[in-house]
């Protein structure tokens, strides 16, 4: 086969790239290197998590016409089907763990009891795309104040109703500092209407200072804990699958 100079150079370039890619990939399989690569996460969290800066809030004109759906299919359980077709009658959010007064809140009480907080913020998916939506709901801090968090609590875990099709339920977590952020909201409305099923009905966490996977959909239970690990893995479904727990980058 005759080969011109340009395709020869191209082939050499591809071969050397390929060599680098293979070496890096085999290093990636090494458990300690794989762990070492996650080392900057602490530094990133220490720098970027040091204060409570607010995500930019947009004007209503900026709201995206369609809030893209991503992640798992909506929950398939009979109970979810029933609730979603019956205006969430019978559904309630459980807040428990290391709190003084564990409680359950149905949708009307969430809407009635707590101050409604709204934000028009950008949602940045870990894949790279962004959309803007208006989220309204209860400040996570208000909810936690209502049940009174015990002094030694460190993390707030959000248990969800959607699963990956293999029985693994979605979950996410925030530390106490992140949970106290003035834009960390447990939302019940998207663009002034009840959140559609595809975007996480009836309750979705919205944390606009971190990537989309932190904003867990279909939240069913909020559990306050002293530590992650064990049953709670690295603190989230995607975190257990190699993603960073600190989703700020």
């Amino acid at each position: 086969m005759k080969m011109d100079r340009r395709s020869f150079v191209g082939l050499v370039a591809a071969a050397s790239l390929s060599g680098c890619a293979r070496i890096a990939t085999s290093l990636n399989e090494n458990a300690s290197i794989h762990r070492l690569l996650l080392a900057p996460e602490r530094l990133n969290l220490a720098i970027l998590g040091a204060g409570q800066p607010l995500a930019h809030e947009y004007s209503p004109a900026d709201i995206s016409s369609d809030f893209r759906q991503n992640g798992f299919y909506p929950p398939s359980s009979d109970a979810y089907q029933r609730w979603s077709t019956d205006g969430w009658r019978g559904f309630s959010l459980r807040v428990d763990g290391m709190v003084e007064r564990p409680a359950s809140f149905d949708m009307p009480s969430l809407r009635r009891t707590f101050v409604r907080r709204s934000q028009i913020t950008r949602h940045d998916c870990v894949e790279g795309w962004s959309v803007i939506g208006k989220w309204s709901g209860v400040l996570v801090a208000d909810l936690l104040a209502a049940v009174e968090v015990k002094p030694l609590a460190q993390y707030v875990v959000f248990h969800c109703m959607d699963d990956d099709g293999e029985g693994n339920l979605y979950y996410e977590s925030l530390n106490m500092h992140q949970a106290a952020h003035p834009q960390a909201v447990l939302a019940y409305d998207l663009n002034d209407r009840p959140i559609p099923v595809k975007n996480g009905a009836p309750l979705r966490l919205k944390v606009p200072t971190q990537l989309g996977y932190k904003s867990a959909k279909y939240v069913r239970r909020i559990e306050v804990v002293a530590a992650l690990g064990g049953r709670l893995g690295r603190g989230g479904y995607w975190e257990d699958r190699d993603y960073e727990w600190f989703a700020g980058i």
Partner: protein
Amino acid sequence: MPHVKKPSPRVYRHPLPVRLTHWIAALALGILAMSGMQIFNAHPALYASDVSHFDRPVFKIGADEPLAGNPVGYVQIGSLRVNTTHVLGYGPDGMGGEIGRAFPSWATIPTYQDLADGRRWHIFFAWVLVVCGVIYAYFALRLLPSRADLRELPHTLRTHLVPWRLPREPQLNPLQKVSYVGIIFIVVPIVVASGLALSPSVDAWLPWLPQLFGGRQFARIWHFGGMIALMAFFVVHLVMVALTGLINNLRSMITGWYVVKGRKSV
């Protein structure tokens, strides 16, 4: 040594911190480009705005996989579509077959599709680049071209017209100074800053940063375009190093010593 030869005159061209950070930064940039392509593969489209308007990307790498007939990989710039089957859009999956993916397995870290691990490599080596880059840039301050350098630039350009008669001098010429300074103080900072603008937490701290680039999605264009510019620099850099005395140039960036009259002694 059978006979004593008068040693060629040599100059100490690069101090140790420069040599060290040059090679580490080169490695980091290579890994960043390859893990960056892995990350790009998760959503291989760019939008010239703050958010994604999914129906009008300005740049896209995709695949058409019809039920009947062969799949086609393509690169789309605006409304122009170029067939890139087997390389971009539809190409090697790293396991002997082909699959719809923007950048092929031989160009990404890891080779298989894995956004989480691509991000680990990318964010780790972003720190390596920044730490090294600051040291390197400090030493590169002496490359800032003087007014005399700029005056001499057209003349230097003329001496570079014939590829096999390029000048070989121990000190950097004005053309080198201008290109290195452009890369170190303009292109790399743009790539780093536009990369930071993609972070929602950085954006909360520095709301003006994504705006500087025309919005978050536009910052991806800057980040991607900067990578292309760096790759172009890398190719030209390699060619120039090879054409002006490969061994002598490499030695000067490894040991620090550059032999004057390199043509005869090497």
